[in-house]
């Protein structure tokens, strides 16, 4: 039986070895311990001894060759044993299997000793192009950002800048049409527009370079432009996530958040903890004289004198103040005006007895791991209603009414910047619990300013709940593109005649505003009644 001899690791750091001398030839008989080769390693020249006895049948390497540890170097066998090519071929690649131990399996080694070869960093290392093709220092190539989760390419609708313009970070550069919407693309950096690489009307894949910004006097050579156009090696700066443009419905950029006057508040960790416990607003207290940070004592003093409680914070706005409309509010204004101008509505009102639902909700929330809100129940009931009355998912499309493929329901959420109504997708297929989880995520994303374009697209109805603000009943305005909107009031203890008695029940008002272009009173009334009944018969809710 042939036995392969592999290059052993002759020192802890040895990874490969160079064959300096070969001391055997084919046909030689060797005993265990005989020197076969002299091997040069990273450390020294060492003798490689035969691990076994036998006749040299094949020498697999040449003097001068450098091979990795574990490489088969020689085959020993019986005196005149033929070694087949298949056997030799079978050896390569099996670098760690034991050379002369009987079929020992290499055990898993706890930590890999050979680092994976690093892939060359293509983007970051400039190609050895000629000087002229190189991007001058300080200049940046701006490429088409992905403006929504599903966006693969975009069409340049308008160019809002020209060569030579100075732009600031956040200035709108282009209007871009995506598969979903037309969006503004903001500049991720400041600089002077040097080169515009695209034309209006062009449709480009994301990450295509579209603009070069640089300092005022910098010249960008033609060679460089060509190299960038041809996907060359110039560093392409992608707009960061933070500078992705705000979509029609998205929440305001964080930069517009109110910054507390006086900059960062320095408070000890303990002061912060106590402030949170006592509801004290740290921005409204200052350290004691000559101290550099607010301490627990400062917080407690403020709490005692009631000077800084967060609850008692003054109204955001003062009399006579001129308030800049933020983008979100501008969008709300446009949309609502459009709605009033183009959607002829009628309004339905119904009362729902929520007594049982309140009970079941408390029970579910006691045992379950996800907290289910009233909105989650309402969304579920609305989805069931829409499945029964699909006309309520329609919108006018020329001569047709187009019904929705899936039941997507908007949820109006109030944020610091204003109103957003992201979409709970495909509610029809979701259980109550799944809706609860999804909505929680959606609300978190909204509050964290992390909504994607996809979160904001679609929907056939919106649920808007002002119950939390103590509102009994209100008439909401339909979001353009949707069929109706449900206004939810608070749940209130009400005396109701029931079976000849007067009972105290928990009652909630629902108001439905409906686009009359799509649905008529009878459709909408049945739909709303269905929603009411669904909420009242709690066995409809299997979580």
């Amino acid at each position, binding site marked *: 039986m042939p036995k392969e001899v*592999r290059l*052993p*690791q*002759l*020192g*802890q*750091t*040895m990874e490969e070895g160079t064959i300096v001398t070969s001391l055997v030839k084919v046909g030689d008989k060797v005993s265990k311990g005989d020197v076969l080769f002299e091997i040069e*390693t990273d*450390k*020294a*020249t*060492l*003798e490689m001894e035969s*691990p076994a006895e036998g006749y040299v049948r094949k020498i697999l390497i040449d003097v001068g060759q450098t091979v990795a*540890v*574990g490489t088969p170097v020689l085959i020993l066998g019986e005196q005149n044993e033929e070694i087949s090519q298949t056997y030799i071929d079978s050896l390569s690649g099996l670098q*760690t299997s*034991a*050379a*002369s*131990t009987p079929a*020992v*399996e*290499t*055990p898993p*080694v*706890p930590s890999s*000793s050979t680092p994976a070869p690093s892939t060359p960093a293509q983007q970051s290392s400039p190609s050895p192009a000629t000087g002229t093709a190189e991007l001058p220092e300080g200049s940046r190539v701006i490429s088409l950002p992905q403006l929504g989760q599903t966006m693969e390419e975009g069409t340049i609708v308008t160019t809002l800048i020209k060569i030579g313009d100075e732009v600031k970070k956040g200035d709108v550069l282009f209007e871009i049409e995506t598969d979903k919407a037309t969006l503004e693309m903001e500049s991720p950096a400041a600089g002077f527009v040097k080169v515009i690489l695209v034309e209006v009307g062009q449709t480009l894949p994301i990450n295509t370079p579209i603009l070069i910004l640089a300092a005022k006097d910098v010249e960008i050579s033609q060679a460089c432009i060509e190299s960038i156009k041809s996907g060359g090696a110039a560093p392409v700066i992608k707009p960061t996530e933070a500078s992705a443009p705000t979509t029609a419905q998205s929440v305001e950029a964080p930069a517009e958040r109110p910054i507390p006057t006086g900059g960062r508040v320095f408070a*000890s*960790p*303990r*002061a*912060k*903890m106590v402030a949170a416990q006592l509801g004290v607003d740290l921005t409204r207290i200052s350290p004691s004289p000559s101290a550099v940070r607010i*301490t*627990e*004592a400062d917080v407690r003093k403020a709490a005692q004198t009631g000077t800084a409680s967060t609850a008692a914070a003054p109204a955001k706005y003062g009399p006579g103040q001129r308030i800049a409309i933020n983008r979100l509010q501008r969008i709300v204004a446009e949309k609502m005006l459009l709605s009033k101008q183009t959607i002829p509505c009628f309004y339905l009102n119904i009362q729902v007895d929520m007594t049982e639902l309140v009970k079941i909700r408390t029970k579910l929330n006691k045992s379950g791991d996800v907290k289910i809100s009233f909105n989650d129940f309402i969304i579920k009931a609305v989805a069931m209603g829409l499945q029964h009355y699909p006309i309520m998912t329609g919108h006018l499309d020329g001569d047709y009414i187009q019904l929705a493929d899936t039941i997507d329901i908007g949820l109006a959420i109030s944020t610091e910047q204003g109103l957003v109504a992201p979409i709970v997708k495909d509610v029809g297929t979701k259980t109550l619990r799944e809706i609860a989880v999804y909505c929680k995520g959606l609300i978190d994303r909204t509050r964290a300013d992390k909504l994607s374009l996809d979160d904001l697209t679609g929907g056939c109805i919106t649920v808007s709940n002002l119950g939390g603000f103590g509102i009994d009943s209100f008439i909401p305005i339909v979001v353009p593109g949707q069929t109706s909107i449900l206004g939810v009031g608070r749940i209130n203890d009400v005396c109701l005649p029931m079976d000849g008695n007067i009972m105290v029940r928990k009652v909630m008002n629902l108001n439905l505003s409906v686009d009359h272009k799509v649905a008529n009173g009878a459709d909408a009334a049945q739909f709303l009644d269905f929603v009411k009944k669904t909420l009242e018969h709690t066995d409809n809710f299997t979580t």
Partner: protein
Amino acid sequence: MSLQVEDMRNKAVPKLGSLIKQRTITLDNAKDWLRTIYEIRFFEDKVFELLGQNLIKGASHLYAGQEAVATGACAAIQIGDVIGSTHRGHGHCGAIGNKYAKDDQARQTHWNRMMAELMGRETGYCSGRGGSMHIADVMNGNLGSTGIVGGNIPNAVGAALAEKYKANNAVVVSFFGDGSTNTGAFHESMNMASVLKVPLVAIIENNLYGMSVPFFGSPVEGAGCAANIEHIAQRSAAYGVPARIIDGQDVVAVFLTVREAADYARKNRQMCMIEAKTYRWYGHSRSDPRVYRTKEEEKAWKERDPITVLSKKLLEEQLCTQQELDAVRDKAEATIESATQFGLDSAWPDPADVTKDVYVAESYPDTLVTNEKNASSQAMKATEAFETAVKTLTGQTKKEITEKAKEKIRSEFGMNVLLMKEALIEAQAEEMRRDKNVILEGEDVGIYGGAYGATKGLLQEFGTKRVIDTAISEAAIVGAAVGAALRGLRPIAELMYVDFITISMDQLMHNGAFNRYMFGGHAKVPMVVRTEGGVGRCIAAHHSKSLEPWLVNVPGLYVVMPSTPYDAKGLLKAAIRSDNPVVFIEHKATYGQMGAVPTEEYIIPLGVADIKRPGKDVTIVTYSRQTMFCLAAAKELAEKHGIDAEIIDLRTIKPMDINTVAASVKKTGRLMTVAESFCMCGTGPEIVRRLIEYKFDDGHTGFDYLDAPPVNLAAADVPPPMSEPLENASIPTPDKIVAAVKAMM
């Protein structure tokens, strides 16, 4: 044995046949030697092969060529005797394991566990914690092996001391290389062993080289030279002990001489030396190209392969046939092959167990902990009352006043007022009475009573067997304590100054603290190193440091630093009873400090801090003499500045009672540490780190509860200066503590 160095190579080695006839050995013995030699050889060859395949990683000091030494020596000693091993220890471990193996199955298990250990598997002798250089079955006659050349020798002396003390009639065989005979540890150990007259057989395996350096020159040009004598045995003259030179390739020669030496050591309670001339077949380690020795030399030695030497005797004396010898060889090879398979099939240690077995787990009953808290505050009160009494009582002399005050405390509190050193003496005396395994050794601990008087009277009560004055050999003092502890004693080793611990650090850390872990949790080292430190006597940089940060940086050690006589007594007693190695550091400025100590017996749990003064505004964490400074500062802060400081005396620095610290900071919001050691990576910063990371049950961390940045007061980063004003400037003092606390409020 005469004191002359006898070169046994000049004498004929008796024939096996005659030894068998005289019933010195049996034929089976001789065949078993051959089997052991073969097993070691196959083991080493296999290890070399597996290293090449990366199936074994790490150290690879192979014993091939030297097998006759370990085999002959282990055969010559008795069950119950002990060996100590080295970095080239597979042969020692292999041979002693064979000696203890009752049958072939046990023998196979032994080799399995050796191979598994080299492969780093859970089934190995040390569960993969030790590997090649620390391979040992410490449960069976092996003290263990060390990676520090020479480091194993002091342990063997201590083990021999223990065997002698226990009157077990056992001897200790210490193996070590030619290279190690040039270390201080060797000299300190040989001297100590010879002076203390312990039953030690020191076997020098002179394989002619310490790594690449020839012991006594080499024909190879450029090769160095480690010593100016050819025969290491000649060094025995320096210790006044007998020595032999033997042929280390002939197992019969080794057996006979070691047997004689062990007899001598047993009977005479004295050490002797054997220098075995031998040779290693492989390089020092696998990456060694062996350029420092010639092929001719290698060839000549290989002709005297211990396998050949013994096989030839068996054949020529017609005691065995070739077939029989082949059978022995095949059996050995099969043993190693299955050991290899066993190792490869064995599980890896669970990474979750990485911290297992650093310490012997120890705990105290809850009642002990609470009762002690009461006792402590009682002692504080009594001490305060004593101090007031001294100030208010009248008398002719100070002594008279003190005596009156002591009497007052005794009658009012039922407590004695003791000097710190008296408390320490009481602790040691009580524990020595309680447990005969407690012994005391160190410089001047006997008739002199300790440099700071902390062992006065112990010699008189316990005698020279238990209170042992040693030569000035700090490495050997600590190393011997380790060895004695490994063999079941509870030694207290006194180091005159903690500054001198720098010399013992190898013994303290690598053997004292690490042995348990390295040997897979099978060893324990219950010893106490008592020492003192700190500034206060204007004795400058070599005698004034506080080195506890060095020590707390050593996994496996406990570090205890008392501040009062009450703490000193209770903590020292607990330290002596602890199964873990404890460094107990007294403060040189406190030996004359007086304090109340309960009359009844008590111990203080290790790892439990003491709130020496409750307060609400700031937490000051301290220990040792600085506790006294902090209490003085707290008094001033309260009286003059209306600041109510809580003083926590850690008492034990490692393990650190961070719970008490955290609970206090939760209350006060402010943390200051005060220590007399250097600040960088020191105890203060460590306390702060632990506090910041501390997790409370309420989900908050220690960080959350801080109302001000923590402050560390520590020694200035200077060698402690001599001059008194400078000395004071170099450490925290009450005035500095007051100022620093005021600044952080």
